[in-house]
Each structure stands twice: as structure tokens, then as C-alpha cells.
């Protein structure tokens, strides 16, 4: 079980308090109607599925309830950093 640092609560809590929220930094088109079918499909379905560092969303569901982002290594599961929604991913 992972220990995850909630950037809002500023403490490490066990994974069971959190819910996974999928890939981070997906941008919903501002004007969906103007998006082509291909662009919209890509937004809906295409994910990077990286081997290695992966920016992803988690929610502190049983804590503060906030969504935040983190960088997790998909090989080792190691979460190197968590950061608040809206912030750019820190460079490692």
C-alpha cells in the first residue's frame, strides 16, 4: 500500500484514503463544438500510458476531498512528488 502526500493536508496518508483519478493535465477543449471528431476522440480516449514517470490525478476522498496531481513511476510505483490542481508538473 502506497503512502501518498496530500498537498492540501500536507501530510502522508495511506493509499486507502485516496481514489485514483486517471491521467493528469488533460485539457478539455474550451469550445468542444469546434473540435474535430479526431480531436474530440483523442481527448476522450487517448492516454499516454507511459512506462516510467506518469502525471496522474488522485483525490483525497476520505480526507479533504480535493483532487491533486502527482508524478508516479509506473514501473516502481514510487510517487516522487504531489502537487495541487492547476499547478504545472515540477521538473525532476
Amino acid at each position: 500500500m502506497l503512502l501518498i502526500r496530500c498537498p492540501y493536508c500536507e501530510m502522508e496518508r495511506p493509499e486507502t484514503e485516496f481514489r485514483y483519478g486517471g491521467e493528469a493535465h488533460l485539457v478539455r477543449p474550451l469550445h468542444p463544438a469546434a473540435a474535430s471528431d479526431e480531436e474530440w476522440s483523442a481527448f476522450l480516449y487517448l492516454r499516454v500510458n507511459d512506462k516510467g514517470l506518469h502525471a496522474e490525478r488522485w483525490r483525497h476522498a476520505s480526507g479533504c476531498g480535493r483532487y491533486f496531481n502527482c508524478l508516479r513511476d509506473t514501473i516502481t510505483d514510487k510517487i516522487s512528488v504531489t502537487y495541487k490542481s492547476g499547478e504545472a508538473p515540477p521538473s525532476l
Partner: protein
Amino acid sequence: MTGDNRVQSGGRIDRAKPIGFTFDGKKFTGFAGDTLASALLANGVHLMGRSFKYHRPRGLLTMGSEEPNALVGVGSQESRFTPNLRATQVELYEGLTAVSQNNWPSLSLDFQAVNGLFSSFIPAGFYYKTFMHPKGAWESLYEPLIRRAAGLGRAPKARDADHYANLYAHCDVAIVGAGPAGLAAALAAARGGARVMLFDEQAELGGSLLAESAARIDGKPAADWLAATLAELAAAPHVTLLPRTQIFGYYAQNFLAGLERVSDHLASPDPKLPRERLWRVRAKRVVLAAGAHERPLVFPDNDRPGIMLADAARGFLARYGVTPGARAVIATAHDSAYRAALELAQAGVAIALIADLRPNAEGEWPEAARKAGLRVETGAAIVGTRGHLRVSHALVAKRWADGSAGRGEAIACDLIAMSGGWTPSVHLFSQSRGKLAFDETLQAFVPDVSAQAERSAGACRGAFALSEALADGAAAGAAAVSAAAPAPVSVEGAPAAHGGFLGLSPPHGDPQKSKAFVDFQNDVTARDVTLATREGMRSIEHIKRYTTTGMATDQGKTSNMNALAIASQALGKTIPQVGLTTFRLPYTPVTFASIAGMSRRELFDPVRQTPLHAWAAENGATFEEAGLWKRASYFKRPGEDVKAAVARECLGTRERAGMMDASTLGKIEVVGPDAAEFLNRLYINAFAKLGVGRCRYGLMLNEAGYVMDDGVIARLAQDRFHVTTTSVGAAHVITLMEDFAQTEWPDLKVWFTSTTEQWATIAINGPRARQMLEPLVEGIDISAAAMPHLSMREGHICGVPTRLARVSFTGELGFEVNVPADYGRAIWEAIWAEGRKVDCVVYGLDVLLILRAEKGFIVVGQETDGTVTPDDLGLGKMIAQSKPDFVGKRSLAMPDLAREGRKQLVGLLPDDSQFKLDEGAQVVDAIAPAIGTSALGHVTSSYFSPTLGRTFAMALVAGGRSRIGGTAYVTTMQGTALVRIVEPIFYDKEGKRLDA
């Protein structure tokens, strides 16, 4: 009988405490401190099981948790029976009842041993090759046969009578293994003041020290040093000692999972004690001191009862005072077996011969053996054995330079003690994702780079000698608390032992014609491994799966390195080139019950009950589950069957009035200046201009355009909405709301509160509904003129604040009374008292589903399955076309969602008006469609309507709306039913009854 094979003194058993037990119905006696294995050996019982595939007679190979052969079932009561326990780990208690497994009719006479005669037809990959055809035969014919023939123990038939506990713990240093290295680590860490947890799989802490009779540590006999060390640790308040606790899993961030056997070893345990306890431990630092496993030598017929690992033979003597044979042949490639020979000889076991594979054996141990007059032959291989239920001869031959061996000379013996050397136990290190390296000198994989705050110490990283293990452990313990390593303790009488051999022992003749076992538990021979390479398997992972070597519950503890060496030789590659398979958890088998812990039976899942649950239970409700909720299905009266009760509730509601507990409806308070804008973006309907006091049905899509939830949304104020959701969708909906508000539109000022459990919701439907409420409601004019359909008012009912809505899910005049949950029952009873005056009924979920379906109202999750659009449901007109965007809108214009011929919701009327279709049944357009024809769709809801006096259904059918007026067929268990396709509304099409 008592132990015939027990020496007079020595060992850690208590000869003053005899213990009676049975094995396969036969009575035996052992002593306190025995395991089932040692007690059986003491009684001369070597035959303890039959092998997995060939049903070969098997005895003990080892003395510990790595045992592959002696698997037994334990427990005199069916409700406490446990199969597949390793006899080497089963502690003896008075009355213990054990049985052997995988044999019929008995252990000594097993008819299925004929599998062995046909074994040349059951090679590696046999299942894959032979049981492919005919199609379908695998499930119906082959698998059941194979399962019966090859297997482990049987599952108990009765419900488990024991209970199981879960515990979380945190510590500074967790130490796995309480042998010399682990104990030294614990001492060093504890003296540094750290919170230490020391785990060991055995009943007694001490590891190899428990069988150490010669060595002196710190000037004391090893047993005294052990006792003093344990006393110091036990007295330290910040140290937790956990014997009988197997750390079986090493997860991310130093999270360890361990299984403690709490009461299995007790004759009459305190019923308050759990049987097992699952530990979940988060440690700042971990020291792995897991020790090493001795390896078998792979020679033909190396699996007969009486052939065991040399240090196990020595251990049974040193620890339990048991001589495992009268005349032994020692087969070895490692010095440590000489020590076994010496100690066995000292106890009176005749040592016929020490056959050492190595050309020379000149360490301290071999010299001592020669000095003691034991016959030592170097360059000697075992090329076979004889015997049936017990080994009778070892065939010993000269090892030639070309890697083969000569013809064997038969040497009579009843024990072959073998040693191929030692394999560090790197299972947990590997689970922690640490990287292993192959040590050419040791010919073993050892820990290289740690992935976590972890250090291996002692034999599990190749520090085999007692002095090395103690020093390494102390250094690891000190490092874990950032202290300097303590000065090493002095060790005497424990010289280092060297040597080792990997792979197939030099054979005499064609090795393909003999059975030399590599993996004892899964019955994999050297021949199987080489066959796999000949058939094209190159990766060790493929060889493992093809032969099943290392895949038994023993996790290949005794077999992996030999299998790897045989494969590498066959492939002409080095061992590191071939690589090691992944070590999986659990290290030893873990019971499902311990993982479930308290989450069983009524505690398996939380149960949600509404504030009106007790009233319903007192008034004849039958409940069903809806998510975690208990919902009343119907209220049977004495003498009524289900059909009669449902009919009475249906007709009563349509004709007069019905009350229902609707408290399970999800409720979310959506508040803020941007609340309307937010809902406008989330639902397909328009909410921006919804008037205060008005309600609107809301349909929610996911971003892919499919219906996810629905409910009625009421506007209480400019900035306040009372949102209802489906009963099981509430948590999902509020999560989605939070997601969009926090991450997509953080500029909107809107907040969400789950209020599902704060409100009791009472639905009153039917022409007399208003009549029932009027006397009770205060401050709200509920007349048709003042309170139209789809409105909500705040006021009081019987003095209690209420949010009163006029809504209907039945098509009748309907109200929903929301009151604070604590007042729910009182208000329900007050309304019920009024209801009785107008002959009102109480109805349950069954009736609600029928009444709504008669009106064609959908249930999300029943008419929808995550691939259904609003237009598919005929609800396309609800979409607020003027809105530039809402969640899912863009997707509705995607080609597949906008295409012709999608499945659309229609009504079905079976030609036989009393025939009820199965929900989920396929709709087809011919009475006997050709095989391979796609179905048109499926039935989503199907009921008998007491109001209509006939059955009806709803279905999703391809191009359904254009088929209205036509017919189709529905497949059923009774054959194909003809149906008419109609509009999905069956009652009061004009909607007049809303204002009846």
C-alpha cells in the same frame, strides 16, 4: 506407540510431556515441542504424502516452511479443517488429527500411482498438447479428470468456525527472520532505542541457533546466548517479538504483510482468540534476515521417503532428538553435510558412506569427518536409488570428467541425506523490487541494489558462516538506527562450510530415461526442463510456465536454482544470461479468511438502512439489496403470496393512494452563486432559467455522451438546489461534481454537500394523495393551482420542517415529503394514519418498478448500460439545444452516436398476454434465426401489470422506433415468443392522472 527413533537426551522437546495425536486414523505419541513432522519421524513414519502428478510416495524433504512433500490436512472438525499444511510447521498438541492427502484408497496403496507407469506420456506441456481437442472437452471431460487425479488437499465442506483479525502496526525497524543475523540486528537496533518488530515464521525464535549444539557465542553455548538475547529483547519495552508470524509480502514503501498463527498450536484455545492475525506493518527501515534454503541434488529417484536434505536430517536430531534413519548415505557437494554426518554418527546412526560430488573435499568439516573415521568418497555421484515406500539403497558411482558417471554400486541404507549447497532466500528482497546479482563464487543470486529503505543481512545475502551472519546482522541493525556497528561477538566451534552444486547430478546412462526431480511439489523432473528447451522455450519465464517448475505453493524455494542451472546448460547460456523468474507473493500460502479478517458474513459490507426501515420490518416488508441499501420489495399480508401482494399494492396506488419509503434516493445540496450555471453545464437540461420553487427532471451524461444518472432537481433559491440522484449513483454523482468543480471549472463558485442520509423521503402517489397531506401540512398551499406538478415548497408538516415536492414516478398525482431523518418515522406514521382514512396502501420497490414502467419511465442501469444516449431512450427532446455545451454534448455529434439504426427504447407486448419475458433476453427478427445472426437488442424490463391484466416489457432494439407497429421474437427458456413492438408507454398516454 512412542518414538522408537528418539535419542535419550538433547533437543528442544519436553520428554516429560507426551502428546497424543493421530495421523490417518492411527494413534501416535510425541512430545511437547514437536512438530507433526518430527513426531511422525520419531515414530518411524517417513511416508507422509503422495506427489502431485505421479502420486509417488513421498516423505519429508525439509524441516521448515519450504517443505514440498509432507502436506497434510489438519483438524478433527470439518469447520476447523485446514488442508495443505506443511507437517514441518504444524505444532503438536493433544488430540491433533491429521490426514494425508492426494491418495486413494490409502497413503501406502495409491491406485493412481499408475500415473507413474505412464509418466513418459505425461511430460512437460502435456496438458497443452493433449487436451486441446475436441473443442469443449477441456471443461467437461479433461479438467475434472485431471483435477481428481492431480491435486492437493480437499477444501473443507463446513463454514469456517474460527475468526480472524487484522492489525496495523508501525515501527522504526522491522526485522524479518530471528536467526543469528536477525537477532543480532534486533539487539543492535533495540540498543539504539528504536521501535523494533522482529518476525519469525517458527514457533521459537532462534532460526539455525535452535539446532546449534557445538558453537559458542560470546564465550557461551549458542543456546545460552540465544536465551540471553531473547530475554533482553523481551524486556525492552519498545521491542515487539512475533514468533509464528510469516512475513509473506513486501510491498511499496516498506509495507510488510505478515500472517501470525495465533491459536492453531493450542489444544483448546480461548474462543476469544482469533485463529490467525494478518499484520500490516509500515516500517521506516527493514532488515531482511531470511536465511537460506538447502538445495536437493538432482539424481534419479531422488524423491523416495527417507531421502531428505542433510541439514534437515541433522536438524531433526539436534532440535527434536529424532534419528531420521539407522543407516545413512550422505550425498553432498557441500561441507555442511559433513557436519550432519558427524552429528548423526554421534547419535548412533551408521554412516555407510559420504559420497561427495566434488573431486576434493578439504575443508574443516570434511577433515573432521575423516578424523572421526567416516568413509568419504570424493568424485562420487548418486546415480539412482531403490526402495518403494522407503529408500533401501543408494546407487553410488564414480563421477567421470566428461560430466557423466559410472554404473552405480548399491549401498543399503534407510536414509539418504543430501546437500547441493545453499540458496540465499531472496524472495522478499525480490518482492521489494531490489535488484539481484549472480555471485560467481557462491554460485547464487544475492541482493545487489535495494529499491527501498531495506538491507539484507546474514545467509540471505550469502553471509553463511555463523560469525559472518552475527556480524552482518549487527551491522545492519546498527545502520538502521544510524549507529556505528558494534564490535563483533566472538564465535567458536562453527567453522565456515563451502561448496555447492547446481543442476543435474552427473548421470549414468541416458538422463532422459529417468526421473530426477527438480520441483518436488509440482513433480517436475530434469527431463521436463530439458524437454521444454528442446521444444523451443528460451526464456526461463516460458520454461517455468511450460513445465510448472517453481509454480507450486512452495514458490520453488528448493527448486528454482536447479531448474535454472539445467535450463542454462541445455540452452548453452550462463545462469545470469538465462535470468531468474520473478518471485511472487505470498512467500508461503495465506488463508483467504485472514485476508478477509472481520469482513465476513454480516460484516462483509456495510448495510444501509433508511430511517423508516424499522417500520417497514414491523409491517411485513420483504427486503432486497440496492447497492448497500436495504429496500422493501413488497409488504405481504398474512395469506398473501408475492403476486397477490404486488397486485394489491399496484391497484391500491393507482385507484386510491400508496405510500413508499423513497429515502434511499441520493440527495445533494448544490449551493453557490454559480450553482445554476454549474448544473447547466453538467446536465443535458436547461437549469439557468428554472424558477425558484420549480423542479426539473435532469439527465446526466458522461463525457462520452452516454447516460450515467438521472434525478429531479429543485431550485429552492437563486443560489440553492436540491438535487436527487439514483439510489446507487449518489456517490458517483457527487464525485463527478467535485471533479468538474475543482479541476475543470474552478472559477465557478459552487459547493456540494451529500444530504442523502439527512432527509427521510416519503413518496405519496395516487388520486387521494393530496387528501392525505392536506390536514398535516402547515404553511404550504398544496392545491393544484398553487402547487403544480414539478414544484417544491418549504414549510412544515406536523410541526417539522419539510421540503415538499410535487413529483411523480408512477404517473399518478404524487408528492415527496422530505423531513429531517430523525423525524422520518413520526411523520411517516402521521401520514399513514391519514392514509388509512382513504384506504391507502404501502408499496415497495417491486410495485414502483411496475408503475414506472407502465409509464415508460426509465431506470438508469436497467434501461441503460453505459452505451445508451438520450436519443436512444427517446429523451432527445430534453436536450437544451440552446446550450453551447454540457458534459457529453460534443460526443452526441460523434458519428457512431448520431448514426441511424442505433438501439432504441421500445415497448414489447407478448402475443401471449400472460407470458412474462426474461429481462436480458435477446430480441430477434425471425423465429429461428440462422446461427451467427446478431440480435436486434435485448429486453431491459419485463413485468406483469395488475392494472393492465397482462405482461409487458421494454427493450432496446436496433432501429426500434421505426419498427413500432411490427413484430419480433424474443428468445426464452421455453422457446421463442412472438411480441408486438409498441411505444414504450402502456398507461395513461395523455398524462391526465397527474392532476387526477
